[in-house]
């Protein structure tokens, strides 16, 4: 599966436009909630219609009708009996749905640990024993048609993981691990965004879930086991050297090189990502240069300092180097 070199401004179909993602599920976990959402919407509209009708009757209705409406009996029927019946039915159904969605994790589920960090997502793919087999950031790759268990946690403040087309949201809380299961029925790209206010550029903390066919996913996973290709051109080699000397490696890691910083996103395959800056910019060379040079102007208060002191050609060299990491 070849990632697109150039993406639309937002490739993130899951968060894009019409139909509303909550009503357009792409997997079973979101699907059952969508059914519920339709039923609840119907319930709300119907009850509202009844209440409006009652108000209208009270104000303008025939005297006989008004008389019937104007007694304590009506309060018992409309205010007690009716809601109790409707709510009890809804509750029973809702609770059975809840337990269906939050069944315990099956041992065979694929495990991915996602940690919310201010203001990006650290992604670790785990093997059956919980060992990390692959590190990535801001993109989660899953095989379509399979249930994947996401172990959600946080390294700093509370974030919330939300991919509306795949599932409801679940908070990422420091000191805890919450487990969410997602499944995408078909290959595709599903957008997500942080849903719990986490300070600063909370609004600009997005990510994507990429679902592949199981075969593609297997190939993808295999290809990621090796370090990314070494820089091929002079400019890229110069960029790699600058990457090391300018201090980038203090925060970022690139597999197979001496860069092993852990504070920021892993950049081993950054060239293959769909977006930059945690789901906000298209990944092209120009955006990369702009981001490295002065990410503060793009995503204020993010943790990466501006590198305005680097001359233009250096920035470009680094961008060329990173672009080749795919």
């Amino acid at each position: 599966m070849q990632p697109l070199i150039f993406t639309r401004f937002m490739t993130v179909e899951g968060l894009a436009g019409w139909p509303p993602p909550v009503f357009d599920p792409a997997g079973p976990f979101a699907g059952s909630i969508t059914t519920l959402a339709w039923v609840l919407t119907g319930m709300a509209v119907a009850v509202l219609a009844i209440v409006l009708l009652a108000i209208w009757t009270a104000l303008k209705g025939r005297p006989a009708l008004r008389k019937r409406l104007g007694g304590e009996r009506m309060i018992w029927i409309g205010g007690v009996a009716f809601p109790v019946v409707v709510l009890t039915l809804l509750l029973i159904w809702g609770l059975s749905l809840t337990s269906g969605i939050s069944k315990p994790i099956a041992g065979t589920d694929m495990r991915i640990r996602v940690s919310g960090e201010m203001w990006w997502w650290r992604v670790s793919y785990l093997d059956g024993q919980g060992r990390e087999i692959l590190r990535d950031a801001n993109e989660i790759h899953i095989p379509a048609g399979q249930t994947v268990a996401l172990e959600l946690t946080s390294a700093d403040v509370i974030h919330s993981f939300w991919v509306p087309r795949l599932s409801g949201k679940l908070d990422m809380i420091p000191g805890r691990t919450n487990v969410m299961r997602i499944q995408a029925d078909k290959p595709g790209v599903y957008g997500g965004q942080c849903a719990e206010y986490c300070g600063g550029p909370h609004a600009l903390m997005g990510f994507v879930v990429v679902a592949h066919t199981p075969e593609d996913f297997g190939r993808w996973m295999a290809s990621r086991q090796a370090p990314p290709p070494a820089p091929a051109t002079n400019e890229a080699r110069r960029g790699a050297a600058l990457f090391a000397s300018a201090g980038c490696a203090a925060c970022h890691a690139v597999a197979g090189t001496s860069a092993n910083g852990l504070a920021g996103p892993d950049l081993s395959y950054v060239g293959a990502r769909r977006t930059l800056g945690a789901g906000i910019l298209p990944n092209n060379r120009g955006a990369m240069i702009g981001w490295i040079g002065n990410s503060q102007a793009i995503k204020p208060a993010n943790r990466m300092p501006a590198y305005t002191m680097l001359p233009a050609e250096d920035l470009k060299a680094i961008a060329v180097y990173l672009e080749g990491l795919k």
Partner: protein
Amino acid sequence: MTSETGFDPKLYDRFPTSGARPRGELEELERIWCAPKGWQYLTVVNNNYVGIYYVGAAFLFFLLAGILALVMRVQLAAPLMGVLPQETYNQFFTMHGTVMMFLFAVPMVEALGIMLLPQMLSARDLPFPRLSAYAFWAYLVGGLAFFSSLFVGLAPNGGWFMYPPLTSTAYSPGINTDFWLLGIGFIEISAIAGAIEIVVGVLRTRAPGMTLDKMPIFAWAMLVFAIMIIIAFPAVILGTLLLEFERAFNWPFFDPTRGGDPLLWQHLFWFFGHPEVYIIFLPAAGLVSMMVAMVARTDLVGYRLVVLALLATGFISFGVWAHHMFTTGMPTLSVGFFSAASMAVSVPAGIQVFAWIATLAVGKVRYNTLALFIIGTLIIFTMGGLTGVMVALVPFDWQAHDSYFIVAHLHYVLIGGMVFPMFAAFYHWAPMVSRRALSERLGKWVFGLMFAGMHIAFLPMHLTGMMGMPRRVYTYLPDRGWDLPNLISTVGAFVLAAGIALFVIDLIRNVRLAPGGGNAGNIYGAGTLEWLPTELYSTRSIPVVKSRQPLWDDPDLSKDVEEGRYFLPGSVTGNRETIVTSPLMAEPQYLQIMPGPSVWPLLSAVFTAGFFLLLTVQAYGAGLVSGVLAILAVLRWMWETDRPVKQPFVDIGAGINVPTYVTGTSTHGWWAMVVLMIVIGMIFLMTVFSYLYLYGRSTRFWIDPPDAVSLALIVGGAALSALLAAGSRRALLKGDGRKRLAIWLLILASIVISAVTFIDYRSWLAAGLDPEASGQGAVIHAFIGLQACLSGIALLMAAFVAARGARNFIPVPRSNVIDLPAIFIIFTAALGAAGPGLVRLFPGTL
């Protein structure tokens, strides 16, 4: 008819009295309750003034927070707008939520209570007028200072819910968060003060004959409101204290790396935060219940059902807090419980809605502005309630939570449940405080704009949320389809604002405040007591109440009341006074002498504000001075209280004699002290909850408690202190000769309980407990801090009693000045034994 206090209800038949009233009686009443002049407007305590100030200030904050909302709506009108930078936007939405909830909604309903309740109950004033004045000034000064933080870019930016760890020093090192904690501190103080005032006012100062069953619904609603404040606010008081301790002293209540837990904050905050919604809604619902009856010109259908609904709402609302936490990964079982409770709470809401509809159906509706706002309330609130039922279902909430769907839901609930009723109330009660009513012609426009604007602004947000737009984002990227609904919402916000602006114009054009007499009067033909002719002393005489709508049932009532043919037609002691009645049947019990205007509540409030503000900006020395001055000002204000008058018994009308000075469990002071002790007890219970909660999370860093000797010393000391305090009361009973002994016993009791606290502290110190090292250390230090604070108050009380003793201001053989400190010390001693006992015996290595 049975009696509650031994009062013979036949005595009510003596009213209305006949015969001429003595000359000069009315003039004296007017002199005693005279209007302030010049600077005296700052020292008034009369609810007619304080109520109006309070309503005005709360409305000011409503406008300010509304302006913030408008600016935010401009920023969100299109993707990637640059009107508000990220940081400023974060401050704006935090302030919008905080100001609307804490500086507008709660104070506004409390203000309406202070303004309307004495009138509705036909009391001369609320039982603690100076406390109202203090609460108001603390709120105004604190609120303005808090709001001003926005102008210097230091406003809080962590959201109105202030979740740690985002608000811990690690991620919010600036003083922005401290400003939030400060602002909330004020509102906590004034809310608790107001709640005490309202509980005692509603239960003890009703007009004779107004049994609980005849109370106006609003009084019921305010009673439930006040009780809910008393139970709910301690959770947020404790929460804010713990967060400030964590920030100031590095005590890790919410830090998971040291045995704290960020979810503890969420539990504390929402245990307060959800009841808070009903705290706002119930009084407004009470107003609607009264106004619906007025609009339909008939009695409210289902009065008792509505009262039951109010009580049920209050009760159930304490079982729903965790529905704000459905996405935190709670166990399925608790999710089920909270989901069920959240749905159950809609039943009492349904009862009220249908009671209102039934009342409209029975009566004959006048289509004035008031009626429009009532109908608007019904529709908007129902819509908010229905989306509330939707999000009560957990799986749906997983999608809707923290999205714009919730923004829509909560604005429907709060605007329908509080803002529209408030505007209806403005139209309805304006003639009570103003020479002119508000304009009907403009009013219909105000309603139309507000109703349309409200829907245009918030209806699309349901969709925006389902389209995936999260809350609290300062901007959003294009190409997501969110542009159009957001633009519509922005347009709607301005339409809504236009309606409110028109209302403000109407206010300026028509409202001519007349706190005493000369108001427009009962233009709607309402039937409750606040529509009796009033002056600054409220009604000339206090009527006997025989029904729920006395003015409808007795057409002569207004005339008779005005001619002084009922209770207390003048001042019998030459002081401000009101009748204290029994809690259930409202039988006259005694005459309360009320304090008059004073500068001390104002000064106390200013210095209290100074204390917190100066601490926030880290001027510790000046802050301390201000704190001491605040305490001195409070003591000075208390100095003038509780002075018996010469006449032990007085005739309050028709030959009915009541005492002027009573002590013990029937006094308003005792009741207030009990309410205060419940508040403190709730803070204590919340601390216990925090302790157990953190214990349940992790005991990795916990140490063994000190040995049994310390516990024996503490329990023994606490018991001794309680005995000494009880002995003090007994000694005083023996007469003048034992007065000095009584005072000494009280002083000793306060010293012993302080020593107990110190022993507790030392024993933990010796055991090696470090407040910074673990959740255990932090919570136990919170316990000790609470106890130290109570002990300090006990010492202050003892010193105050000693000072009054020295000047011979203590009546013998019974005195509230001894009684109230004594029960406070006994209570402190009980907590002083319970807290250390708990943390030593559980987890239990002793």
